[in-house]
């Protein structure tokens, strides 16, 4: 029934607009209601599915992400944090989607490229670099952050090629194992490169990392807005994340729908046949590794600027698996799938499971009795936050049984050939 409604442009638009406004209004009135915020997120999903003119949809998307979300984020800073995290993971998932989803190269150490990007800005955007080069030239000024967004791309792409070169002859399982090893090597390096020269400050991590400059502060003052960093930074970082995600989606779509993307998919389908048809395997695989890695590198730079502090803990094997799970859940090789998968998993971890824990805690503290069972006696081990990995795993297993192709599997583009003439 909902599907029929969404297929009719008029009612669909009305429904989506009303839902978006209603939920936004709802959150402004009870900022702490996670249910209302989830309904807001759900309306964004409906917006994606609703059938309406492309321009209208684009306008509504921009309005939602560019205006409504920042409003919600100012009301409740945690929502902004969730939105930023979702954005970071969307960009990561899109990068991995190129390597795994399109080119079919199973990469279990993807977070390494994220780490490379993050550490590149962390080292030079903090006093850490003084320990390496001596003197007092560092940290680099906040403006350098923008340069490092591109440095992150370059360094991570380089790392991607470095990983790609020795492993190109490997297939499937072997490749997966080597990439897993590579991921661990990067993490262990980050953990141990504090001696003899202190590059990474080891497990203690690097802090304080410079944040991007609020170059528009004079403008805000002129408009009579107080540029309070505590208010501005989350919005600012959110805008940067949106920009990066936008660029990532654009690059992904352009690559996918080109001779490069088709060559990647051909390699995934049958690499011997692909090579026999003239696809240079080594070059195309390296390109896939480099492209995927570069997205991770640039969000890594943003991540370290957002966190101000980073240490190897943020770049564990579980993170690689998490990003992989996002694209499997969303649908391999599908851009909307990667976006949705990343959003669902991040929201599940940060919001729903934590929200459930909070709610259970409240019930327990209130001494609620359910079916004659006093919740005060509930052991603390039973907090949902403590077994979020289990729930997450359960969801993955169920998904693989009932919808192995993912939530939004890759669709083949239908071309009207006559029109091309």
């Amino acid at each position, binding site marked *: 029934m909902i599907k029929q409604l969404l297929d009719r442009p008029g009612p669909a638009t009305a429904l989506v607009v009303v839902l978006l406004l209603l939920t936004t209004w709802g959150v402004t009135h009870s900022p702490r209601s996670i249910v209302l915020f989830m309904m807001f997120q759900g309306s964004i999903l409906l917006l994606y599915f609703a059938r309406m003119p492309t321009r209208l949809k684009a306008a509504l998307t921009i309005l939602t992400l560019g205006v409504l979300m920042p409003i919600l984020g100012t009301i409740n800073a945690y929502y902004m944090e969730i939105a930023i995290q979702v954005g970071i993971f969307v960009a990561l998932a899109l990068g991995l989607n190129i390597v795994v989803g399109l080119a079919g190269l199973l990469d279990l150490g993807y977070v390494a490229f994220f780490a490379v990007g993050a550490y590149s800005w962390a080292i030079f955007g903090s006093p850490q670099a003084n320990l390496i080069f001596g003197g007092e030239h560092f940290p680099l000024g906040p403006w350098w952050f923008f340069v490092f967004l591109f440095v992150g791309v370059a360094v991570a792409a380089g790392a991607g090629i470095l990983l790609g070169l020795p492993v190109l002859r490997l297939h499937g399982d072997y490749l997966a194992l080597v990439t897993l090893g590579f991921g661990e090597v990067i993490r262990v390096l980050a953990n141990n490169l504090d001696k003899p020269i202190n590059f990474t400050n080891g497990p203690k991590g690097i802090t304080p990392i410079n944040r991007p400059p609020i170059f528009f502060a004079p403008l805000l003052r002129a408009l009579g807005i107080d540029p309070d960093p505590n208010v501005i930074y989350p919005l600012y970082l959110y805008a940067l994340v949106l920009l990066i995600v936008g660029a990532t989606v654009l*690059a992904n779509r*352009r*690559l996918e729908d*080109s*001779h*490069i993307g*088709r*060559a990647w*998919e*051909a390699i995934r*389908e*049958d690499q*011997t*046949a*692909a*090579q*026999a*048809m*003239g*696809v*240079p*395997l080594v070059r195309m695989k390296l*390109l896939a590794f480099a492209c995927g890695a570069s997205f991770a590198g640039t969000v890594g730079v943003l991540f370290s600027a957002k966190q101000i502090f980073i240490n190897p803990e943020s770049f564990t094997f579980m993170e690689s698996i998490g990003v992989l799970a996002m694209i499997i859940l969303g649908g391999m090789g599908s851009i909307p799938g990667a976006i949705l998968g990343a959003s669902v998993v991040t929201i599940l971890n940060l919001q729903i499971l934590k929200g459930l824990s909070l709610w259970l805690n409240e019930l327990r503290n209130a001494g609620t009795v359910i079916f004659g069972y006093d919740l005060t006696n509930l052991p603390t081990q039973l907090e949902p936050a403590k077994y979020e990995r289990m729930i997450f795993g359960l969801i993955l297993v169920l998904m693989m049984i009932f919808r192995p192709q993912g939530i939004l599997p890759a669709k*083949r*583009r*239908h*071309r009207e*050939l006559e029109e*091309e*003439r």
Partner: protein
Amino acid sequence: MVLLEARGVSKRFGGLTALNGVDFTLEEGHIASIIGPNGAGKTTFFNVFTGIYVPEEGAVLFRGTAVLGRRPDQITELGICRTFQNIRLFSRMTAIENVLVGMHSRVPLSFWDVISRNARWREHERRQWERGAELLGVAGLRDKANELARNLPYGEQRRLELARALAADPSLLLLDEPTAGMTQGEARSLMALLRRLVEERKLTLLLIEHNMRVVMEVSDRVTVLDYGEKIAEGQPTEVQRNPRVIEAYLGRRQWTPGAGPAGSVRA
């Protein structure tokens, strides 16, 4: 003019000699066939030409250029393209996308062209799709452009593989059992198509084929392999009468007087 030449090609897999000092030449504009019993080394020979296997001994020249030591994609760029015995399409891509992949080595676009989607990219992409549609038309698959390759019936998959190979703009096309699994009628129409291609596109064809009627009908020259060695070569009618060929196909039989001729080679 000689288009392809193999000199003393030997390929061994462990103790098994798949090809043993095979010489072979192919004239431009010809249709030639390689025949022989199962396991004679025919597909191995193809794999040597296309760079999938590197032989232990011998040389392969294409228009006088050494082929050995080049990667399969570089050989495709030189102008040799092939189809496979057991169809190897990109099964989860559409028919036309399969054909477009075949054009990869002829696309002069850089990474930057793709990312920026400049006028150059738009122009070449449009041309690729037009050519893809045209090639599908040649293979009689025009209305199947948006079908997934794996959803096509068997005969159409074979023709799609042909269209994909043609997309690489080859001057030599190697077809590994193109009519396998086809009815006599389908095989005949495919051969008519191939003949037309040879005439219109200045193509040279090398076939591995078991369907003797097809071989005898279309080939200018036939080469017979058995246990990795060339046992006969020449016009179809010559080869057909060659006693070694008959023996290879029918096995050495005790000759019984009055039993009649050992018979002609049949499919």
